[in-house]
């Protein structure tokens, strides 16, 4: 048994026949071959699969593909535009906000919504804001910096230094 759904993925509208039990993350990764969205757990804990559904950051392993019917989805592949990288992508690169890169797409998608709701978050707000996303490599310091940098860029403020600071 399959069901027809229509979604807009990174600006491209498409209709597909899917099994009702198909997870949204598998639809994106396997049926639509956009593999930038990752899977890191089976308990909705890690956030590696985070995407934007109608502007809200969602763990795509926790949603069925059929629930996305009629919705607008943005994944990491849809962040950059012809003008260049999204500020959050620039923030992560400039501030060494990633090591292995596996958590990064989910982390960035979460940060995009975070900054949308709160363009000038404190360090504590950032830390709580990304607490649904695990990173095993970076120790989070530079992810915080990356999000602060992106916030400044979005607000049009002066960009913070990206040089490492040592005691």
């Amino acid at each position, binding site marked *: 048994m399959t069901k027809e759904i229509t979604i807009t993925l990174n600006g491209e509208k498409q209709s597909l026949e899917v099994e009702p039990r198909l997870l949204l993350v598998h639809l994106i990764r396997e049926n639509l*071959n956009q593999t930038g969205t990752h899977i*890191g757990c089976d308990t909705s804990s890690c956030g590696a699969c985070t995407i934007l559904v109608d502007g809200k950051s969602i763990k795509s392993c926790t949603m069925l593909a059929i629930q996305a019917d009629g919705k607008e989805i943005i994944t990491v592949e849809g962040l950059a535009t012809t003008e260049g*990288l999204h500020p959050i992508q620039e923030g992560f690169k400039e501030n*060494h906000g990633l090591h292995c890169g596996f958590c990064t797409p989910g982390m960035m998608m979460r940060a995009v919504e975070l900054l949308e709701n709160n363009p000038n978050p404190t360090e504590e707000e950032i830390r709580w804001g990304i607490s649904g996303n695990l990173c*095993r490599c970076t*120790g989070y310091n530079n992810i915080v910096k990356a999000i602060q940098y992106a916030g400044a860029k979005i607000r049009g403020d002066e960009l913070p230094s990206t040089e490492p600071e040592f005691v």
Partner: protein
Amino acid sequence: MIKCDTPKEIGGMGHSMKRKEDDRFIQGKGNYVDDIKLPGMLYMDIVRSPYAYAKIKKINTDAAMAIDGVVAVVDGKALEQYNLHWMPTLMSDTQMVLPTDTVMYQAQEVCAVIATSRYAARDGKEAVIVEYEPMKPLMDPYKALNDDAPLLRPDKEGKTDNHIWNWKAGDKEKTDKVFEEADVTVKEQMHIPRIHVASIETCGCVADYDKVNNHLTMYMTTQAPHAIRTVIALVAGHVGLTEEKIRVISPDIGGGFGGKVPVYPGYVIAIAVSFLVGKPVKWIEDRSENLQADSFARDYHITAEMAATKEGKILATRFKILADHGYTDASANPSKFPTGLYSIGTGSYDYGASYMEADAVYTNKPPGGVAYRCSFRVTEAVHAIERITDRLALEIGKDPAQLRMENFIKKEDFPWKSPTGWEYDSGDYHAGLQKAMDAVGYDELRKEQAEKRAKGELMGIGISTFTEIVGAGPSKDFDILGIKMFDSAEIRVHPTGKAIARFGTKSQGQGHETTYAQIIAQELGIPMEHIQVEEGDTDTAPYGLGTYASRSTPTAGAAAAVAARKLRDKAKKIAAYLLEVSEEDLEWEPGKFFVKGAPEKSKTIQELVFAAYTNHPQGMEAGFETTHYYDPPNLTFPSGAYICVVDIDKETGQIDVRRFVAIDDCGNIINPMIVQGQVHGGLTQGIAPAMYESLIYDDDGNILNGTFMDYLVPTAVESPSWETGHTVTPSPHHPIGAKGVGESPTVGAPPAIANAIVDAMSHLGVTHMEIPITPFKVWKTLKEKGAI
């Protein structure tokens, strides 16, 4: 302090160059193993045992085979026909690929379902019915050697008990004598719990066997692709898969930390199935399988003792270890080192007597252990020495910083021979600790602590001044399955002066594409942006032992420097020829050779490379490329001084890490930004076992926290805002004076945190707390001590 002698346009050592690999990762264009999709690919899922110890009576696959899309169910008996049901471990023990009669731990692989889709494979797995006859498992390592303990490995010829090996280091007689005569001795029993690396990407592979050409391409999450190729050939050579027919490709890896060094049964099953059906087979484990069945780390029970004078001069240490290896010894250690490099556990202190002894036993737990971001059991050793040093400070009433300062090996005493036989290459421990104390404001903190204590508030300051041992290793001592632990670099510079460099190592996030390029840029003067680094394809990269134990910079990084220097020598010859002078008349500055005293007469490296293809001297080999296999003369010994400040809420036991200052010394620094990033990450993996993580089993062998719901990987909220810095004491024997850093913080942080928490409660009579130190443990201790 950070040496930087190339301009930023060249981007050699010391520059915080942004990472080259990031562009693909931030745009979703990384290529991890689960992103690989091949035509006709089948999917594999694995049926696992719900019991820790049971006989398999029957496996009924009828219902599974009836599911649309299920192609086959493979069990141990099927593999047995090809003699593929057992495999060797890296420690020369043996491990089941699939069982033929008995399961030995919960979540062990029982059989594999192969199907045309991921969902059909999962359906098939749910439909397989296995009948078991459960037995009482052996979970307590202390009971493993009792007479009534079940004999877990009757498959091993001549084995009559559950003892795996005994290991010793140091001088027992001398040490015992010092202990007998010493003014002061202290002793603590500590458990370094079983934990899991939990890289965010789990393990997996795509095995692609091409029947026509008898060739296997194995895409897999491995930190050591070449070694794995050799292991596959050893396991499957007898069915025709000899080493030249195997290509291992390790694509982008989503974190390794040692967990992607071993060969897991899933890989072997996928290869066997692909070999039998002639189609590509994908196996990706899910998180719970990863936590429950893949190799654990640590699980050492240690009795640590220290002897000293009453003034606080350390005289000797003694360590007795019981190692719980689970059902087989599948450690990822160099062959001659069953306890890894535990014998570095004499620490950073100048004394002459130490004795260590370890026994390993089998239990009904999953096999291991791997490093968890640590150089072969160094974390266990460092925890014991740094905790027992604090215990001594408490015993004699001396400030723990002062005690350390008085006992450190002095800068001028390097190279220093340790009582267990290591030759520490270099270090400046006094400078490191002083820097950390200044940065944290140590004296003021002690005053604040005294004031708080007077008011009944709990605050603690914990120190850890550790010495690491990395860069395995010199071929006289270090091998894995007989293969010496050198590593390699191949550099090819194209006629237009742009290069590709390939290595036997494999980055899992460490940033090799950037740092190796910087080393070559440093030595050859070619801008790092024009040096492309490749790893992880055994068909193209030179043989090497891979990336773990902080060995990449000490071994392959050194190989890169030596290879680049060989090429620079060639460039010099060409320059002498083109400028019509002798080689002695030439001088080098980054990017060109010029004639001494006549700097206008010069040739750039790009011109010299071009000439190597277009106008090389007669008799010289054309081209500009070379390979170097680097065999390190010694290990490297990074060190660190960490200070942690905690505040404890008496009513709840809640621990707040107020500050954490980490001063690392990893020798010369290639990229300060990346070194700092590695330290941040390692520190979070240090706080993890200190306060949050451990794998817990009940008496029936059930794992109680085998998912991300209850295995507590720290989030950004638990992870403090780290403060980091460095001292620089170059390694005297490494070509660029570097030492390696990725693991130091994981090794050094846990005792700093434990020491801080114990320090907060030491006035109540608390001398030790077992990690992970949770609020509940703290609250219980406070209750027991009558503090609340």
